[in-house]
């Protein structure tokens, strides 16, 4: 290879460090021949200095001001030679006016993280006490981008075929019962891949793994004395860097390799990886918060500001990222492209995504350029894009999120309908019919794949707690129980909290099974919250964002103590996976377009072909015709689901099958384990083929074959 490029050689020297003019793109620090290319954007600064540290050292070993001729437009760039990639930490000092009313908050005494840094040091080990006197807390570092992926590739599973598992990286294996090496880390999840596979999960959605500071707003719990931390991590320090404290190798700065290794392993086992991404705000908070990066580099570009220069707060956390500023829009795009291409991420769930559709002054846009760019981006073309279609500023877009044929939504209305139906509220049958069909009332033009169906998520009660508590019990959070949602639609089954009453405990387990059954037979894309399959409890706390303890950790002993729930969840999830008629990519049409003699879907009640949708009704049934599976492309069995949330048993007349078929029982939540559910393919032939007594508050699933 010839070695005669001009940019392989330095032209300048400062304090013994050799450097030259750099390349403006890409932003961030990039390894180039013989050196590192640094590039950073700032629209209003007057000058910029690159600050270089040896890893962990208190004082920098060099500070190199960018010569004027190194700035093109608003971008400073330089190549620095002979740096030790692995030992290097860097940052910037930005000089410029301090004039908050004009949106300018420059302070050159501070060292700032690179918004494009691929690794952040300073919080390398979870809850290792930081040195608060450190002049530079969150240190930008370099990452190798040459991981050996072998043949790996994002899986591109059709979205309607996914069963999503919402999971916290630390919480999944941190409990001592997990029995793994390095509990609480990316690496430990690899030891539990077999569990996920057995359960039938084919997509994990990880709660935020972008670098955040678990120490942010840390304090003592008034009830337990434990330290309360930022456990969920919905507070981004840097969008490109994985959370070092979640990596067993974080102390060696090898988190990038560890995350990629996990993703490669999950992909080998047919499991997709989605990230929960938080672009609505950053960890810098409002004007009282720390200046880490964006505020000091280009405050008025990165944040939405009021005319007085304060921070708009549509996120409820102090600041709002200025997502539809063209520069920020590009950063979001660069970030997602980076995760899709360098980490092989299969999809993204956008926290408070309604903010991504707001203009720079906060107005909701009818055609938000960021959402459109993401929908049509060539690199993200096969990624799933899922919006949490509301924000803390009151914008609620479930059913109306600007989708461009691509975006799916967390269907909050699904959650609300199912919860109310499960606690026997009147007037819910009509809504439930929409929900089990994939919410055509909300997504008539977008199809059921626009609906991410969930009953529980990290935010709110766990599924077990939905049936053990009427009210939230958040005292351990130290906010006088004022935090967390009040509209939970939960029902304690007759006793608040734990009880030894076997009837109540049976009913609670039955309700958990009812919920899982409904979720997994609904059209759309189901999402299960980590631990709900084993009855995980948060002891009534519905806002466990700060609890790094048993309230959040998956207790693996529950797989045995609640074996009935685990078995039910596993069979239900796998039932969905083996029956394509449950996973239609398009809405059902209520008619027979394949000549099977049955419409694709039909609704029933205690009388077959006769569904009572009146407000006093608390029960209904539906029949799916397997010949219509995937629009008639594949053949499946007939599936009949009866849901009775009335407090008494009801006889359901069964729709007649074609003469060659018989009804078999797959699940009946009114029965004790193990006869509540059968392994797929081993369903039990019904003695009475024309009538089924569905118990009080029970779900029955039959297979016609």
């Amino acid at each position, binding site marked *: 290879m010839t070695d005669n490029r001009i940019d392989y050689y330095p032209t300048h020297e400062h304090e013994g460090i050799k450097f030259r003019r750099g390349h403006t793109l890409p932003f961030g620090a990039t390894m180039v021949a013989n050196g590192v290319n640094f590039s950073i954007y700032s629209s209003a600064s007057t000058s910029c200095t690159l600050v270089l540290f040896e890893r962990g050292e208190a004082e920098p070993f060099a500070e190199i001001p960018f010569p004027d001729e190194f700035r093109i437009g608003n971008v400073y760039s330089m190549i620095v030679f002979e740096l030790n990639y692995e030992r290097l930490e860097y940052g910037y000092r930005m000089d410029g006016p301090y004039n908050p009313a004009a949106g300018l908050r420059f302070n050159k005494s501070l060292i700032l993280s690179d918004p494009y840094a691929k690794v952040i040091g300073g919080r390398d080990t979870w809850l290792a006490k930081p040195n608060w006197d450190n002049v530079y807390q969150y240190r930008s570092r370099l990452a*190798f981008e040459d991981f050996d992926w072998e043949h790996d590739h994002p899986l591109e599973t059709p979205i309607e075929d996914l069963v999503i598992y919402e999971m916290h990286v630390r919480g999944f294996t941190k409990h001592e019962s997990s029995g793994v090496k390095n509990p609480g880390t990316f690496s430990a999840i690899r030891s539990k891949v077999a569990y996920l596979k057995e359960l039938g999960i084919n997509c994990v959605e990880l709660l935020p793994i972008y670098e955040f500071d678990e120490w942010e707003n840390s304090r003592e719990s008034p009830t337990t004395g434990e330290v309360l931390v930022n456990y969920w991590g919905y507070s981004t320090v840097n969008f490109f860097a994985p959370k070092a404290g979640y990596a067993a190798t974080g102390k060696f700065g090898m988190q990038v*390799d560890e995350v990629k290794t996990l993703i490669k392993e999950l992909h080998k086992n047919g499991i997709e990886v989605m990230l929960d991404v938080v672009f609505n705000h950053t960890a810098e908070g409002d004007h009282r918060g720390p200046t880490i990066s964006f505020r000091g580099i280009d405050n008025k570009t990165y944040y939405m500001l009021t005319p007085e220069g304060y921070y708009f707060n549509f996120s409820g956390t102090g600041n709002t990222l200025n997502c539809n500023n063209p520069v920020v829009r590009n950063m979001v795009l660069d970030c997602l492209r980076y995760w899709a291409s360098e980490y092989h991420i299969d999809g993204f769930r956008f926290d408070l995504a309604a903010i991504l559709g707001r203009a720079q002054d906060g107005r909701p846009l009818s055609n938000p350029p960021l959402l459109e760019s993401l929908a049509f981006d060539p690199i993200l073309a096969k990624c799933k894009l899922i919006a949490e279609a509301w924000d803390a500023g009151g914008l609620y877009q479930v059913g109306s999120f600007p989708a461009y044929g691509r975006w799916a939504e967390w269907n909050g209305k699904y959650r609300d309908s199912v919860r109310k139906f499960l606690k026997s509220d009147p007037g819910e049958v009509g809504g439930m019919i929409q929900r089990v069909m994939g919410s055509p009332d909300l997504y008539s033009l977008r199809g059921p794949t626009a609906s991410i169906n969930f009953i529980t998520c990290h935010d709110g009660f766990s599924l077990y707690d939905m049936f053990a508590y009427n009210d939230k019990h958040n005292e351990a959070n130290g906010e006088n129980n004022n935090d967390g949602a009040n509209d939970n639609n939960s029902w304690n089954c007759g006793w608040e909290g734990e009880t030894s009453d076997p009837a109540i405990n049976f009913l609670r387990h039955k309700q958990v099974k009812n919920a899982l059954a409904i979720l997994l037979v609904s059209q759309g894309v189901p999402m299960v919250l980590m631990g709900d399959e084993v009855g995980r409890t948060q002891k009534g706390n519905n806002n466990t964002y700060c609890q790094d303890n048993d309230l959040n950790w998956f207790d693996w002993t529950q797989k045995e103590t609640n074996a009935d729930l685990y078995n039910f969840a596993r069979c239900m999830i796998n039932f969905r996976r083996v029956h394509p008629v449950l996973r239609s990519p398009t809405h059902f049409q209520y008619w027979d377009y394949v000549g099977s003699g049955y419409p694709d879907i039909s609704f029933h009640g205690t009388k077959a072909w006769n569904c009572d949708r009146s407000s006093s009704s608390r029960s209904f049934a539906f029949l799916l015709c397997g010949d219509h599976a995937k629009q008639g492309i594949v053949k499946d069995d007939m599936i009949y689901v009866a849901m009775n949330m009335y407090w008494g048993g009801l006889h359901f007349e069964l729709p007649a099958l074609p003469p060659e078929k018989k009804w078999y029982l797959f699940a009946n939540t009114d029965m004790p384990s193990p006869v509540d559910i059968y392994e797929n393919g081993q369903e039990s032939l019904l003695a009475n083929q024309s009538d089924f007594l569905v118990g009080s508050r029970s779900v029955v699933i039959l297979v016609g074959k």
Partner: protein
Amino acid sequence: MSFTILAEAKKIAKITLTGEIDSLSAREFQKEIEKMAAESPDELVLFVENLTFISSAGLRVLIFAKQKMGSGLAIYIVKPQESVIETLEKTGLQHSVNIVDQYL
């Protein structure tokens, strides 16, 4: 320097690694690998009993060796310390190499 290389380039390439492999020493390690690759060895044997740490750059040299010498190359890592084994495991490299107590 905390790092030494003893190389005997024949069909079996042997290298002894001691101390720590970080991005600086990894460069020397890589140069040795490049030299040995010219001889097309069948096996690469790394004696690592006295190696205390291998960094990301060091791991990359192992992958580089496979790429340079062909996927048929068998890599033996002899008597690694627990911390080195852990690093190989957490980064998924244990599948690409043979971890052994003794090389015969």
